[in-house]
């Protein structure tokens, strides 16, 4: 059978540094094809070349039986490729409807947008994802998850021959992921191919037909999913033997029987204006407390309250036994709290600054005396963390925007570790991070608490919470509703805790 897409011998270098080296990719019609690889392997680059965001250095692309040299995303859409890019690319100020239909608006008199029809169509598409929202409202008023689903809805609605999803599930919860899989199945059965990029290997086994693995800009394997195992895929990605990996084992980071210290931070029924109504939490030294819940349950809001971003309007916080009110991030940092934010692009990196400058941004007050930065010390610290976290960068003065997503995340983690906070709040620390890096990050977190510090861990991956946290506080609609203790937490238990309270409320 002739393939829908074939990319061969793709080369691409960014100012001399190769990102792709003779990479190739082949997708059959009606196939769900996965593309995996570590951070920086070149997955997104491959996609961006295909859709005309970047121009290739060399290589052949053949799509739908024709030589394709797509010059722009618009052209890609015209020729039948719909893409959800890794970095959310929507227009938050415009309405949901506009974000879905933009460029394909239904028209009246061949000229004027038929708004009632556009809204109707948008509602209809979104209802396939189980979303029922005011489509006239600006997209930016909704959560990342909704936005992600809107991006997916837009792509699916374009009637493309190939739908590309670059890490679509990174900000979705389990339920939403299930909905997405349903849509993918639907697409597949109507003959549409899907290119699926994800770091969640389990997902692939549920929906994909074949998997292409990339490493260091090269294509290293193409496997049929039914004939392969997770271990094999990991081995491909890391470039090692299956046996070696098995021998090393997957480190279990789950809480052990270790000594917990004093209570570091304690909140009683705090609330903010940002949909946090009653939040109780206590973190002890040496403890990782997870925050569980569905999307929009208020986990990020809770973290923002603790870090002084949103003002606390009710309730008390005690830090190290003393009553404490967070006023600003700067104040929280001074009181030895750190927070890794959820949205790397908008709230994390300063794209034009170097890796070094990004890493030491929160540390500056400690690095400087009477306003002057001690650059020698700065470089030492940066060197140290680049080595410790295995950050892939050509040198510490490279602009951070040139790093792959996972490596950017590590730099940001280093930003906080370097300030040595007593309480570190991590909001989705492993989102968009590959398996290898993920394990490393989790190990770093564990080491960190073992030094007697506390961590609040927010993650949409239940597995990560269940295995990583000593305790999980479950949130729902801005209320903390339950606490689960490790050892003994299972994913099932967590799901039940969330579901239980949901039922209770609706009963």
């Amino acid at each position: 059978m002739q393939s829908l897409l074939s990319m061969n011998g793709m080369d691409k270098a960014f100012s001399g540094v190769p990102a792709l080296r003779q990479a190739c990719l082949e997708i059959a019609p009606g196939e769900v094809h996965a593309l995996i690889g570590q951070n920086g392997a070149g997955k997104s680059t491959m996609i961006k070349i295909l859709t005309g965001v970047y121009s290739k250095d060399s290589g052949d692309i053949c799509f739908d039986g024709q030589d394709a040299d797509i010059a722009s995303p618009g052209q890609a859409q015209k020729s039948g490729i719909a893409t959800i890019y890794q970095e959310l690319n929507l227009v938050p100020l415009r309405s949901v409807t506009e974000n879905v239909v933009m460029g394909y608006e239904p028209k009246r008199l061949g000229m004027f947008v038929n708004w009632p029809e556009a809204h109707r169509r948008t509602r209809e598409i979104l209802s396939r994802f189980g979303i029922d929202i005011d489509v006239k409202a600006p997209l930016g008023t909704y959560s990342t998850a909704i936005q992600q689903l809107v991006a997916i809805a837009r792509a699916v609605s374009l009637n493309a021959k190939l739908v590309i999803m670059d890490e679509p599930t990174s900000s979705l919860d389990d339920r939403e992921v299930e909905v997405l899989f349903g849509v993918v199945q639907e697409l597949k059965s109507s003959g549409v191919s899907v290119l699926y990029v994800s770091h969640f290997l389990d997902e692939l086994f549920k929906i994909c037909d074949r998997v292409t693995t990339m490493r260091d800009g090269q294509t290293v394997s193409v496997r049929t999913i039914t004939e392969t195992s997770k271990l094999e895929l990991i081995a491909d990605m890391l470039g090692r033997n299956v046996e070696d990996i098995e021998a090393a084992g997957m480190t279990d980071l789950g809480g052990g029987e270790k000594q917990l210290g004093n209570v570091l931070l304690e909140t009683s029924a705090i609330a903010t204006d940002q949909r946090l109504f009653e939040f109780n939490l206590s973190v002890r030294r040496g403890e990782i407390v997870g925050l569980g819940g569905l999307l929009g349950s208020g986990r990020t809001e809770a973290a923002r309250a603790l870090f002084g971003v949103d003002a606390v309007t009710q309730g008390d916080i005690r830090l190290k036994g003393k009553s404490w009110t967070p006023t600003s991030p700067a104040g929280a940092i001074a009181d030895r709290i750190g927070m890794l934010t959820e949205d790397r692009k908008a709230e994390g990196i300063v794209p034009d600054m170097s890796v070094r400058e990004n890493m030491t941004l929160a540390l500056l007050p400690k690095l400087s005396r009477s306003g002057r930065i001690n650059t020698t010390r700065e470089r030492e610290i940066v060197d140290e963390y680049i080595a410790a976290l295995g950050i892939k960068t050509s040198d510490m003065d490279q602009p951070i925007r040139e790093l792959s997503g996972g490596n950017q995340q590590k730099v940001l983690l280093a930003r906080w570790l370097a300030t040595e906070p007593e309480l570190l709040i991590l909001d989705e620390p492993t989102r968009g991070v590959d398996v290898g890096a993920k394990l490393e990050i989790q190990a770093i977190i564990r080491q960190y608490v073992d030094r007697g510090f506390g961590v609040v861990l927010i993650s949409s991956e239940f597995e990560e919470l269940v295995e990583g946290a000593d305790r999980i506080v479950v949130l729902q609609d801005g209320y903390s509703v339950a606490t689960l203790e490790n050892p003994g937490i299972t994913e099932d238990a967590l799901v039940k805790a969330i579901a239980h309270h949901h039922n209770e409320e609706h009963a």
Partner: protein
Amino acid sequence: MSDGSLSGGKAVSRTTPALSLSTLRTHGGLIALLLILVFNALFTPNFLQVQTLFVNISQVATIAIVAIGMTLVIATAGIDLSVGAVMALAGALAPLIFQSEFGTVYPALGIAAAFILPLIAAGLCGLFNGVMISYLNVQPIIATLILFISGRGIAQVLTNGNLQTFSNPYFSYLGTGKILGLPFQGWLALALAVAVYWLVSRTIFGRYLLAVGGNEKAARLSGAPVRMVKIGAYVLCAFLSGIAGLIVVAINSASDAARNGNLMELDAIAAAVVGGALLQGGRAPIFGAILGAIIIQLVKYTLLANGVEDEVALIAKAAIIVLAVYIQQARKE
């Protein structure tokens, strides 16, 4: 295609590592400067003279000083339209002070006050801009438009619209003094540039400044005192404008509130941008701004000295600004 480019998105125009990028960019300005110098050496009568250097240094100093401040503001992704008005205000205050009763009775104190108080007033203008922008979230063009419109008016109200002339050798030193045979204000501009460069590259304020311009949210969440940093930038810019205003008054031995600093905002912005500042913030090439100011000054000089009519000079100036920025833009790829 040589560039890694697409349909014109920003994403792509930045695909070169910082080091080569910044060196090339500096070279872009230097190449432009070189071209102008060569042209002048060949065609402008008496160009290669010390006096020419002298004239240009004395004329470029005010643009350069204001451009340094403008660069700081632009680094926070802002803009300051009020620099000219602040020059007028500071310039109007100085003679008022040293010609006041107090100033004539205690000349030394009067002179000192005539330097200090106008700069404080200028700083207050910057504070006003900064507070509008960082606390009230007013967009910089609009916030500074307020003083752009009324600042000069305030200066004229203070002087009742009159030209204030004076002869005061101490005060005039600012504009006419020489050190090692070169104009004092040239040295002053250089010293200020070095100081601000140090501030930007070596201090926590500088680092925060660039972070705020590069990604304000991220900067705040990393503990940067965003508001203070922005206010700082506007205060510094206004302070530097105040110095420039005093220089103009000192050279002319007269303060003309209606004219002092007129259209300076355009020259300063052009100098900053020609020097490599990015209007979207995150970069503060101080010496670039000086280079930009020199280029703009030399263009002005060249056109004047060669008898190009004012109207044609305007067109030429436009073309040169576009070209200079384009060279940098092209080199980025």
